[in-house]
């Protein structure tokens, strides 16, 4: 059924088209409504400083959620990202700390080395999960649940359970610096988003990800290396979790072993709110970005209005379930 078939005489848009529009762009609408309500109800919401704050506060979850989108598009899930945040954060920090006792010998090393190590740690964690899921056909939920526990344990072993403080100003720049007035983590998020959008929408690899998630058997039959695709998405998610871990430690000024606990839940929430289907094959990275922004804007707005954080949790819960209800309707017919 094509869209034009539904154009009826009664108006500018048929009911079917209106429904499609709401489903496709509902998330943008929801975001705009939320932002409009907050702008009216709080005088500070729409100030440049606050917008910069919201983006800053969204950047870490945004990076994680974009990685999660790749995984969920292939019908997977990555529960380990919060622990990988902590592990990559603490390992990289040990290379760029000026503390005489917390770092490895010879620290601080140049920022590039610290960043490289952090990314490598994330990629390594993702690669392990990826191999277990793609080669050994272990359900992603189980494989990454294992990684969630193992990476947290490794974090505590590596740092002896202690934080790594006194990160060098050069390293902290990625969390606290500015590029033309835009906070550095926001720039990182923008780059991650742009590259991910390009991969998913403009490359063969991106199309394969959708194909694998939509129907793995059909994808295999048509010659796609499903195992490889399934492996790579976990590497991407792990690498981005490593990046997020460094943004976090650079922002707080100290890598903490307890960092990132339950971050996977906010990342999954952003993906789901953004309209990506947990059954794979359907979804947009743009939606994920909006989903992350909705969570960030909501938390910020409620903080500005002095509303207890407990309400934020209730609202977030309602939003997640509501988004999935919309998704079910889209998938299994109206």
């Amino acid at each position, binding site marked *: 059924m094509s869209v034009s078939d539904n154009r009826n005489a009664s108006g500018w848009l048929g009911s079917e088209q209106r429904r499609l529009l709401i489903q496709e762009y509902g998330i943008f609408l929801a975001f705009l409504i939320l932002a409009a309500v907050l702008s009216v109800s709080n005088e500070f919401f729409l100030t440049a400083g606050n917008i910069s704050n919201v983006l800053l506060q969204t950047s870490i979850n945004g990076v994680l959620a974009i990685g999660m989108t790749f995984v969920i598009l292939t019908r997977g899930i990555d529960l380990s990202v919060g622990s990988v945040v902590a592990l990559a954060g603490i390992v990289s920090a040990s290379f760029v700390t000026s503390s005489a006792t917390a770092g490895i010998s010879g620290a601080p090393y140049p920022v590039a080395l610290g960043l490289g190590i952090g990314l490598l740690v994330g990629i390594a964690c993702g690669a392990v999960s990826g191999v277990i899921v793609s080669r050994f056909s272990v359900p992603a939920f189980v494989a990454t649940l294992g990684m969630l526990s193992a990476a947290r344990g490794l974090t505590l072993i590596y740092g002896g359970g202690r934080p790594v403080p006194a990160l060098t100003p050069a390293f902290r720049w990625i969390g606290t610096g500015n590029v033309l007035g835009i906070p550095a983590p926001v720039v990182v998020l923008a780059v991650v988003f742009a590259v991910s959008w390009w991969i998913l929408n403009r490359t063969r690899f991106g199309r394969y990800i959708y194909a694998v998630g939509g129907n793995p058997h059909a994808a295999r039959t048509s010659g796609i290396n499903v195992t490889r695709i399934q492996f790579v998405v976990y590497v991407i998610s792990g690498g981005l979790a490593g990046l997020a871990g460094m943004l976090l430690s650079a922002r*707080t000024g100290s890598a903490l072993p307890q960092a990132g606990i339950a971050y996977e839940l906010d990342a999954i929430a952003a993906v789901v709110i953004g309209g990506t289907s947990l059954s794979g094959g359907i979804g947009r990275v743009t939606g994920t970005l909006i989903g992350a922004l909705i969570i960030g804007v909501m938390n910020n707005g409620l903080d500005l209005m002095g509303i*207890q954080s407990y309400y934020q949790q209730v609202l977030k819960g309602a939003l997640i379930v509501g988004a999935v209800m919309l998704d079910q309707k889209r998938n299994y017919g109206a």
Partner: protein
Amino acid sequence: MKRLMIALASATALLASSAMAQEKIKIGAAPYGLNAEFMQIWSAALQEHPAVKSGEVELTVFDGRYDALVQQDQFKTMVTQQYNAIIFAPIDVDAGAAAVQTAADAGIPVVGSNTRVNSDLLTSYVGSDDTISGYMEAKTVLDKIGCKGNVVILEGPVGQSAQISRLEGNKKALAECPDVKILEDQTANWSRAEAQTLMENWLTAHPNQINGVIGQNDEMALGAIEAIKAAGLDVKSFAIAGIDGITDALHAVKAGEMTSILQDARAQAQGALDLAIFAAKKGDYKPQSDIWATYKDMPWNDGKEKIYNVPWTPVTAENVDQLLATRK
């Protein structure tokens, strides 16, 4: 392979020799969890106690992993293995009582340390009164802002005993300054990252209005400092306080950015261990830790007290270097 055999053989020999030294007192320590710096300092202090170093006491530390059930199971293990005494820092005031009961049924004395438990079966308790620290930290903030202006409070997880008591102390100090307004008062769950986000948003909602920040622990106070710096404001124009005396906070105190109040994990641990040995030896024991000499306000009193209150120590520019030297 040969090396492995030798290693195994010598390990067996070691085990045998320790079993032969029957006089050793077996003491188990059950902290609620070892992920954070405070409990690590606490456990390390136990290992450094003279009685452990001399081999008089055989100490085992059980990581409670922040789970009341895990702690209960560990108590059962210690009962089965016939420990002579137990040092207990429960995760929960009420859930810990069942564990104490298990030990009491087996006739094993339990000494509380750091966190409280609702049980009258404890031999004694060594800890610090959080109401006092809550009062002290709020007082330093209020003194610095001259008992007028606006403050925000960063609370611990609502319902935890430390949050309840520290808030009580905060409120007591605030009551003495009726002109001070509490602009915001929310939980950041002891977390630096959460506190940073909250403070960023509060600085937006109340531009140039916040004078003081009362953080119920150091982590959250440090998060507030980062938010203030990120907003391009001068940290020193705020009065900021935290509690615990963690290493990062000591550095911030040294930089003149905040005040902190040290909770002496070492004294809580070593004091409890002295009392545990005292109970295991049925009174035939003189305390060996130097903490009893350090804190004149907390006399040993022949081990008879039910509660030993370890005094809080404000971290100041004068003692911060000395405290930092103890952190490795």
